[in-house]
């Protein structure tokens, strides 16, 4: 099992450009999340999904959109990148129910720089 993978690992954008970050998990998890991590701060939730075809806003959703057309994939889109979106982005997934004691499994992160 690959676990949670993220594509790409690094990216540099110019202000106004768009891009999509891909998260994939092979553990058949229902829940998926996108977080961002900024210096001096913990991870903050951008958007999340509780199942295929569903998405919801988290703590810092402005400037981002998401889609979950397939259960194993969760896409994070930036339509018009801004320097304030320079950050490290983490995807995570979690199974539904108590069997796995609610652990979230994290991807390796994507470092995004917006110039």
């Amino acid at each position, binding site marked *: 099992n690959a676990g949670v993978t993220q594509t790409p690992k690094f990216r540099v954008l110019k202000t106004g450009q768009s891009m999509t970050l891909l998260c994939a998990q092979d553990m058949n998890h229902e*829940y998926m999340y996108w*977080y961002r991590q900024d210096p001096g*701060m*913990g991870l903050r939730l951008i958007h999340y999904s*509780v199942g295929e075809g569903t998405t919801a806003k988290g703590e810092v959703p402005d400037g981002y959109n998401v889609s979950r057309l397939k259960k194993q994939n969760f896409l994070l889109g930036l339509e018009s990148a801004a320097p304030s979106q320079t950050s490290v982005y983490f995807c995570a997934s*979690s199974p539904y129910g108590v069997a796995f004691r*609610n652990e*979230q499994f994290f991807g*390796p*992160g994507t470092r995004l720089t917006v110039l």
Partner: protein
Amino acid sequence: AQTVTQSQPEMSVQEAETVTLSCTYDTSESDYYLFWYKQPPSRQMILVIRQEAYKQQNATENRFSVNFQKAAKSFSLKISDSQLGDAAMYFCAYRSEEGSARQLTFGSGTQLTVLP
């Protein structure tokens, strides 16, 4: 909304010694989980230990243990016999069991340095 506070931005410990990292949280909920995650320079988030709020017994995982004080809303991490590989950023996190999202709320982290 829940908040998690880690008041020690940086800590250091001598190799083989014991160190305690502090975490407090604010919630009105009764059903939740607490976690400590480790983030080494590789950026990978690694689960260190978890605690269910309804369990009074403190969780332990080898050299890692917690002091969970539910009434005080405190959740500290003790690392015994510190090793060089323990050097990392440590995050305390809260997860509610009373909503549909089940997302994690993180503290700002404590950077732990292990001195040889």
